[in-house]
C-alpha cells in the first residue's frame, strides 16, 4: 500500500508538467485550430526565464578585501552581487535563494509578450493552412528557438536549485500511519503539484466564471456566430494564445529545480505532451488534464521494480503503449468533443 501511494505521488509531478503543457496545447488547438509544435519550446523558454533571473540576481562586481588575503598572500577579491547593495545582504541572499519562485513574476510578462508576438507574427497566417503546414512551421520555430537558447546558454544543463527552505523531503509515511521513511517525498515536488493544480484551477475558473471566458468558450463552440454578434473573437483568441504560452512558461519555471534545464528539454516534453493531448482528446481541456495526470502516474507505476522485472522495458514504452491502445479503441481519445478532428 505504501509503495502504491509513493508511486502515485511520484507520478504527480511529472503528470503536472504533462497536464500543464497539454492544457496549453489544447487551449491553442481549441481556440485557433492550430497544432502548435513549438509549445515544448515555450516550456523551455519559461525554464530559461528562471535561469536568466538567477543570473541577473547574481551579477556581481569585484572588490578587494582590505583585510583578508587569499592563500597566495595576494589581496582577496570578493564578488558582491549588485542586489546586495540595493536591498542589503539579507534580502539579497533571500532573493537569490528564492529566484525560482520570483521568476514566476518575471516570466509572466515575458511569456505573454512572446506568445503575442508569436501569434501575431506567425501563427495568424496559418489559420487557413492545413494542419500539416502548421505542424511543420511550428516545428521549424521550435528548432529556431531552441538553437537560440543553445547559443546564449550553451548545451549543458544549468542547475537552478529550489529555495533552501523547500529542498528537504516530507515523510508521508508517519503522516499516513505507515512506517517512518516508507514514503519520502521532496517538498518541491509537492509545491509543483499544488502550483499546477492552482494554475489549472485558475484557467478553468477563468473560462467558466468570467465574461471573457464565456465569450471564448462560445467562440470555441461556434466562432462564426460569435463574430456575427459583433464580438472581435480573433483578439480574444490571440489573448488565449498568450495565456497558453504563459501556462507553458510557468510550468517550465517551476520545473527547473526538478530537472536542470537544457535547450532540448522542450522537445523531450513536446512528444509526450502531444501524446497526452491526443489521449485526452483533441480540443478537450478536461481530457488533457486528466490524461496528463493519468499518464504521469502510469509511467511511475511502470517503473516500479516489481513491474519492470515482470515486463522488462515497460517503463520506457508505457505511455506510447497506452496511447496506441486508446487511439485504436476510442477514436476521440478519452474525452474528445464530438466532431473535433475525427478522422
Amino acid at each position, binding site marked *: 500500500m505504501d509503495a502504491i501511494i509513493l508511486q502515485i505521488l511520484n507520478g504527480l509531478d511529472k503528470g503536472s508538467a504533462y497536464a500543464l503543457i497539454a492544457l496549453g496545447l489544447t487551449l491553442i488547438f481549441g481556440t485557433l485550430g492550430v497544432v502548435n509544435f513549438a509549445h515544448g519550446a515555450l516550456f523551455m523558454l519559461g525554464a530559461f526565464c528562471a535561469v536568466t533571473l538567477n543570473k541577473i540576481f547574481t551579477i556581481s562586481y569585484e572588490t578587494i578585501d582590505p583585510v583578508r588575503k587569499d592563500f597566495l598572500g595576494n589581496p582577496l577579491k570578493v564578488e558582491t552581487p549588485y542586489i546586495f547593495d540595493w536591498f542589503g545582504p539579507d534580502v539579497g541572499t533571500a532573493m537569490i535563494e528564492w529566484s525560482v519562485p520570483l521568476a514566476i513574476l518575471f516570466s509572466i510578462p515575458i511569456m505573454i509578450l512572446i506568445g503575442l508576438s508569436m501569434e501575431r507574427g506567425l501563427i495568424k497566417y496559418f489559420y487557413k493552412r492545413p*494542419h500539416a503546414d502548421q505542424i511543420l512551421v511550428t516545428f521549424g520555430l*521550435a528548432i529556431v528557438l531552441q538553437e537560440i537558447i543553445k547559443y546564449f546558454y550553451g548545451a549543458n544543463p544549468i542547475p537552478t536549485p529550489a529555495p533552501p527552505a523547500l529542498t528537504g523531503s516530507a515523510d508521508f509515511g508517519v503522516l499516513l500511519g505507515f512506517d517512518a521513511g516508507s514514503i519520502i517525498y521532496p517538498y518541491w515536488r509537492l509545491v509543483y503539484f499544488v502550483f499546477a493544480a492552482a494554475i489549472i484551477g485558475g484557467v478553468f475558473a477563468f473560462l467558466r466564471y468570467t465574461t471573457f471566458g464565456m465569450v471564448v468558450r462560445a467562440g470555441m463552440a461556434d466562432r462564426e456566430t460569435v463574430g456575427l454578434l459583433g464580438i472581435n473573437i480573433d483578439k480574444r483568441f490571440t489573448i488565449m494564445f498568450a495565456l497558453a504560452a504563459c501556462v507553458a512558461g510557468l510550468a517550465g519555471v517551476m520545473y527547473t529545480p526538478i530537472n536542470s534545464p537544457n535547450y532540448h528539454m522542450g522537445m523531450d516534453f513536446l512528444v509526450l505532451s502531444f501524446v497526452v493531448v491526443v489521449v485526452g482528446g483533441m480540443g478537450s481541456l478536461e481530457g488533457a488534464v486528466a490524461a496528463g495526470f493519468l499518464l504521469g502516474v502510469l509511467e511511475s507505476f511502470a517503473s516500479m521494480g516489481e513491474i519492470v522485472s515482470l515486463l522488462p522495458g515497460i517503463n520506457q514504452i508505457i505511455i506510447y503503449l497506452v496511447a496506441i491502445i486508446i487511439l485504436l479503441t476510442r477514436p476521440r481519445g478519452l474525452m474528445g468533443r464530438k466532431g473535433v478532428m475525427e478522422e
Partner: protein
Amino acid sequence: MLGLNSKDKTLFLIVLALTMFAPFLLNPFPEGSELAQFNAGYPDLMQRFVIFGIFAIGFNILFGLTGYLSFGHAAFLGVGSYAGVWMLKLLTMNVVPAIIVSVIFAGLFSAVVGYISLRRSGIYFSILTLAFAQMSFALAYSVLTPITNGETGLQLALNDPRILDFDAADGSLPATNFFGIEMRDGFELALGPWLFTFNFGYYLCAVVMLIAFYISIRIFRSPFGLMLRALKTNQQRMRFTGKNPKPHTLAAFIISGMYAGLAGGLMVAMDPLAGAERMQWTASGEVVLMTILGGAGTLIGPVLGAGVIKYFENIFSKINDNVLYNWFSFLPDGMQDAFVFMIHPFIGKGWHLTLGIMFMLVVIFLPGGVVEGGQRLKRLFRRRGGSDSAGGASSAKVHPAE
C-alpha cells in the same frame, strides 16, 4: 525508354548524369584553395547524399502522394540497419544479402506498424507512428540489448560466424564487399590542382538510388499512384466510387518503409555499424524536413532536399570564425569584426539555426519547396524573355503539395 514518357526520361537522365558525375560536380574548387572546404566530393558525404536521397524518396511516396504525415519513419531505417548488420555478422561480408534482408525486415515491420496506424488519419496517424517509433527506440536501447547491443550500437566482431566467408584470419575486421570488390575501394584522379575521388561504395549506392528513383517515377505515373493521389484529395469520394482506400495506403506505407529499410541497409553496407539513435524521432523529423524542403509530392524534390540538408550538416558546420575572418579580410577591422559577429551564430555548431530558419521560410513562402522555387524562377525568366509559349506544359510535370 523503360516505359517513361519523354519528360520523365529527361529528368531521369539528368539525375543519372548528376549521380554518375557527382565526384566531379561536387568538387568544383581546386585542392588547397580558399574554397576547398566547400567541396563535398568525398566518399563519405556522397554516400550520405544518395542514401538519404533514397530515404526521402521513399518517405515522399507516402507523404507526397497520400498526404499521411508519418513521424516515425526512422524506425524502419533502424530496423533495416540492425537486420543488415546481423547479416554481415552471421552470413557473409557481401553486402547483397544484407541489403535484401534489410528491405525485407523493414517491409515486415512497416506492414505491422502501418496496419495498426492506418486505422486513423490526420494527426492521430502522426502520433501513432511517432509512438511506434519511440517505442522501438526505447526498446532498442533497453530490453532488446541482446539484439541491438544497446547504447554501444551493433558492430562487427572478430569471432562472428560469417558462415559463407573463408577469409584468412589475420586478426583484422573484414571489410564489406560486393562480390569481392571492397566498398572502401576506389581510385583518385588528379587533374591539375583538382583531386577527384571515385569510391566504389558510392557508385553502388548511386546505382541503387537510380533504381529506387526509377521505381518511384513508375509509381508516380502508375494507376496505383493516381489512386494514392485520389485518396489524398478526397477519401470519401473515392469510397463513393466503390474503391477501398485502405489497401492502397497500406501498400504505400509498406513501400516507403521498404525504401527506408533499403537506406538503412546501404548505410550499414558502407559502414557496418547500427545504433538506436537512428530510430529516434528527431531522425524521423529530419526526413520530413528533407522532403518538405525539396518539395513534397514532386519526383526530384526529396533528393534535392536530402542533398541540401546533408550538405549543410557537413559543410556549414565546419566553417568557423577563422574562416570568416579570412573571408572578410578585405574589410576594415571594425566592419570585419561586426560581420563575423553577425554571422557567427549561424555557422559551425549553430547550423541547426540556419536550417530551422530556412525550413520556416520554405514552409511559409514556398510550400512546394525548392522545386517550386525553381519553377517560379523559371517562370519569371520566361516572362522576362517574352516567350511564354511552352510555359504551361513544362510546369505540369510537378505537383506541389497542397
